[in-house]
């Protein structure tokens, strides 16, 4: 049961990650790969504060989220001014560079990672408490993002994605909107990182590699980009299926490659059968986009 609970907590955390990434890349149309690094910033800042500053856990997680948010604003404000495409390159560089830093600094524990993060809750109540917290946060994140994109703000996001030049010429500040969307998405990822750090009490650099970027992106695309519940479906599916086959009792040398193969087959299947994702429009018609520029 403990194993199932851990998997569920992990899935809930990834639901938060995928949902916030969907806000940025799906709704906001901001091409970034660096989502895991904001997860990392949240996790490391929270962990370090818990170890060295002895602050209350909620404060640690909140500061972790704020740190991720501040870092994301710096990245977005500097690169979006050049162009939208530049964000893709800049985010990749930012992720790789910061990971190198984390790997080489003493305070972050170097390549071995940050361990000994204090257990905030001990005893039998620990797992149920974390289950409640992570599932609760996942629900709040998904519904919160859904509320944002459905109202007048979401209408503005859609218009911006449809036709940015006309949008700006109507008096809308597209640049600041993009930075805000990016900051909110990355802040939520940072919060997820903080909870992750407290639950697992251990954070290491390889959990935030570019491979993670690919995994979260796959969750979003497979579930359905720019849909409210797509990331939930994507995260559950991509985490639960590889976990489920561990119950098959196969030898390790079959199991490890099998998980990779399942992942790849799922991606290929969806690419051909349902490119808009599980929760996307079923007519397989890609979202109409304006191509002419003025």
């Amino acid at each position, binding site marked *: 049961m403990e194993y199932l609970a851990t998997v569920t907590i992990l899935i809930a955390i990834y639901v938060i990650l995928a949902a916030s990434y969907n806000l940025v890349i799906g709704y906001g149309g901001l091409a970034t790969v660096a989502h895991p690094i904001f997860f990392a910033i949240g996790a490391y800042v929270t962990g370090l504060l818990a170890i060295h500053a002895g602050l209350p856990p909620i404060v640690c997680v909140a500061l972790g989220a704020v740190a991720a948010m501040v870092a994301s604003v710096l990245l977005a404000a500097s690169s979006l001014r050049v162009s939208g495409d530049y964000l893709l390159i800049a985010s990749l560089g930012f992720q790789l560079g910061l990971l190198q830093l984390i790997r080489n600094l003493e305070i972050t524990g170097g390549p071995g990672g940050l361990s000994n993060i204090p257990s905030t809750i001990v005893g039998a109540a620990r797992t149920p408490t974390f289950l409640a917290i992570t599932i609760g946060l996942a629900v709040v994140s998904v519904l919160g993002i859904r509320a944002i994109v459905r109202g007048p703000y979401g*209408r503005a996001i859609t218009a911006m994605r449809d036709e940015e030049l006309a949008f700006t*010429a*109507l008096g809308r500040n597209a640049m600041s909107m993009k930075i805000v969307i990016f900051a909110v998405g990355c802040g939520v990822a940072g919060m997820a990182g903080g909870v992750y750090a407290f639950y697992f009490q251990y954070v290491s650099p390889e959990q935030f590699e570019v491979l993670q970027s690919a995994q979260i992106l796959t969750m979003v695309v497979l579930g359905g980009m720019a849909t409210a519940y797509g990331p939930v479906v994507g995260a559950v599916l991509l985490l639960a299926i590889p976990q489920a086959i561990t119950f098959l009792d196969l030898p390790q040398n079959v199991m490890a490659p099998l998980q990779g193969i399942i992942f790849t087959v799922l991606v290929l299947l969806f690419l051909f059968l349902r490119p808009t994702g599980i929760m996307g429009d079923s007519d397989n018609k890609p979202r109409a986009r304006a191509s002419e520029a003025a």
Partner: protein
Amino acid sequence: MTQVLRTEDLNKRFGGIVVSDNVNITIDRGEILGLIGPNGAGKTSLFNLISGVLRPDSGSIYLNGQAVNASPLYKRARMGIARTWQNMLLFRTMTVIENLLIAPREYAGESILRVTFGLGSVRSAERQARERALGILDRMGLADTADSMVTDLPFGQQKLIGLARTLMNDGPLLLLDEPMAGVEGAAYETMQAVVRQEAASGRAVCVVEHNVSFIRDLCSRAVFMANGRILQDGTVEELIASKALTELYFGV
């Protein structure tokens, strides 16, 4: 003070191509100025310079006597420089009314903080915008299209929606880039009537248009441009009578 727009020695070049060569124009309150000239004359570029899509290499732009050079595109729209686009640039995945609701000078839904914590004020602003939008659509006889997807409408109506969206901005200056291109029949009449009403209500209007009869019907004054330069500024009759200009324009 009746002068709404004044440009002073506007210059802009892209490499060897001069799109604006010491351009000086003025538009008064209530006036409809025609802007004509052959393709590549710099008419749309002039709109881009005035609205802030392009930055001039030198020269100044004044709106109601106030320099707007330093303001970016979105701020100039909020100051009241409203424009349409030759190819409309409608928000294609949205309905007609949604296209219009995005477009007031101040949009309540633009701030995530206001949407989260000031929902009451956002709601009342939305209500006002919706009323205004329906009023504009009604004037154009398009009230029943409000909930259609813009891409489902015929071309002429899409052109009108492009104008309707711009009219959500109630500012002093209206720049219309080829409003009649591809438009005929009922939409043509509507377009003409609406542009006239807007000028009558006190806006300064500038129209880029190849349809000379449209210009003749609407404008008392017109400017002829070629190669980024203003060649003549006068009544439409004077411009049409000028042999040198008609040769340049029609190549006859």
